[in-house]
């Protein structure tokens, strides 16, 4: 059985399920209460669970992530919502220097089961301070796990998995996906952080894509199929830990790989995927250089024309994939 729901509804349902099943779970963030969250994700949760468990905070990202750390250390399972992932900049100390390292620094005496949810990405005309894709930073922080759901089912499943994990997990949602509808099974299937998924099978090249670029890649793969090119699309789902075996196995099979992300190219997450492939045993199977298709190395501009041109669109993926297969 399946049903239709938006990505935002899936996140909300997963939060509701977790709060129903586990009294340690609560949600805290700016305007998550009566306002329903800047993107309506929490919506009516405060009515269902009360203002103790759905807590409106002041505009204090560092403070609220820190409070999440303190609550997690002492027996709770907080979900902290950061209104735009750009504002993680405000909270970096608590995310990186505290949450991520505490279990390690105290020699394993404590756990920090903290889930931070934050929407990233461009496409809404929100300009340079409200549109970043910052996943690469967090992937570089030992002690964190980082999740990037690309559809409603994953938004639910991965959030539940994050809440089951005793480590701090950053869930990077995508603004453009929130209102999009997806087919979703009646119950969110259980997920494992660190397992990716072959989103679409193919044999001529492997496309590894994250977040909103997954569906763009699938759409591109459909167009490529019309040109007689068979593209496999992989969604890592969690970028830390990364499902390296899944990627390598696919690349070994196809011999070509295109890496697609929305974030600027330079020192972005796909550099890690490229490097992992380049230093692996499948290096010898490559029939063409590894190719990245990423956002331009620019802050996200306001103009809709410029904004669209700044991040990979379906046509760009088609063009790059075709070139890659044509090459060598």
């Amino acid at each position, binding site marked *: 059985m399946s049903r239709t729901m938006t990505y935002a509804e899936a996140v909300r349902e997963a939060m509701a399920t977790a709060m129903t099943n586990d009294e340690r779970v609560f949600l805290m963030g*700016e*305007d998550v*209460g*009566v*306002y*329903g969250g*800047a*993107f*309506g994700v929490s919506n009516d949760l405060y009515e269902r669970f009360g203002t103790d468990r759905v807590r*409106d*905070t*002041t*505009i*204090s990202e*560092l*403070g609220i992530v820190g409070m999440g750390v303190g609550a997690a250390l002492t027996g709770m399972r907080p979900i902290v919502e950061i209104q735009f992932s*750009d*504002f993680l900049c*405000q909270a970096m100390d608590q995310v990186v220097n505290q949450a991520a390292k505490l279990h390690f620094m105290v020699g394993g005496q404590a756990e920090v089961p903290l889930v931070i949810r934050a929407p990233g990405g461009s496409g*809404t*005309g*929100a*300009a*340079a*301070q*409200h549109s970043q894709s910052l996943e690469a930073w967090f992937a570089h922080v030992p002690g964190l796990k980082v999740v990037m759901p690309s559809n409603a089912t994953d938004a639910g499943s991965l959030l539940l998995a994050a809440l089951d994990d005793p480590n701090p997990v950053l869930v990077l949602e995508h603004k453009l996906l929130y209102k999009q509808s997806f087919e979703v099974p009646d119950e969110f299937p259980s997920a494992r952080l660190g397992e990716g998924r072959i989103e679409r099978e193919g044999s001529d090249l492997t496309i590894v894509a994250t977040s909103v670029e997954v569906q763009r890649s699938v759409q591109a793969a459909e167009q490529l199929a019309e040109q007689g090119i068979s593209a496999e699309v992989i969604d890592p789902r969690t970028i830390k830990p990364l499902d390296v075996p899944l990627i390598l196995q696919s690349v070994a099979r196809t011999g070509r790989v295109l890496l697609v992300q929305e974030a600027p190219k330079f020192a972005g997450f796909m550099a890690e995927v490229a490097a992992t492939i380049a230093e692996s045993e499948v290096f010898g199977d490559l029939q063409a250089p590894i190719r990245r298709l990423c956002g*331009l*190395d*620019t*802050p996200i*501009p*306001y*103009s*809709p*024309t*410029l904004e669209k*041109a*700044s991040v990979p669109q379906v046509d760009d993926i088609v063009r790059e994939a075709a070139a890659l297969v044509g090459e060598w």
Partner: protein
Amino acid sequence: MDAMDAYRTMWRIRLFEEAVEDLYGRGMMHGTMHLSIGQEAVPTGACAALKDGDQITSTHRGHGHCIAKGADLGRSMAELLARDNGYCRGRGGSMHIADVATGNLGANGIVAGGPPIAAGAALSNKLRGTDQVCLCFHGDGAVGEGAWHEAMTLASMWNLPVVFICENNKYGMSMSSEKAFKVEHMSDKAAGYGIPGETVDGNDVEAVHEAVARAVARARAGEGPTFIEALTYRWRGHSKSDKNLYRTKEEIAQWRADDPIAAFAAVLHDREEVTQEQLNAVQDEVRTEIREAVRFGTQGEEPTVEAMMAGIYAPSPVDPRPLEARA
């Protein structure tokens, strides 16, 4: 403060934003939108206390600050319309409009992004030995941010020529500032930084002006920062996503009845003996200006990716040389 200038400025802000709202409604503008309709008296009264060369830092709700500081309406509108002839060449939009030449150091999409920058401009004024003053607009919600606290602390420690103006419109998005901050007046917080704090009726443009003028004079005289709370209200929702569930219709209606522009018109009429015709004429002239601004904006060119990519870094005096050219 020239009263008629102030009156005109308030209408410029009001009608600029009504035009913006209309353009959004008709799908001709995109992105997000934070309107300050109802709050016009604050930037108007405050900026009238500045002289040329003085600076401001602004917020996400910054059209009023921008206009009050003297921004060109056409280039502002063009920016919101994402055109190359806009202040930011279509790169910034509403949340990043700046007019650096006239001392408007910019709106800011980050709540409390401005206060440290304002304190830094004030430090620069001091170090450069000028008598410039920087005026820092921020919301009540911004007071929750660490950045605000650090800026207040440093500005007070160094006695910098900066005036913090808290536009207390009762809410930071949906959070009531009364519930959030356990003080009677936001200005009570100033004492914790050892600086003067004052609360004024933010819908009374003359009251705002007087308080800010005093604070600016203090700053110019080297006596350090002041914190001013201006009580006002935003008539519209926080942004387009706002369903106004956190406040009552009655509250909104009550504040709308206290229209800062109408109130000032009454003062001008009753005290200054300005005729209704004169007042109407201002409004009409501004309406024409705004129409002209929209025309200027809609006639602007689309920005190009090439120019954008060339605009990420300011040109360096020296660039890396090609390999062949190195010693």
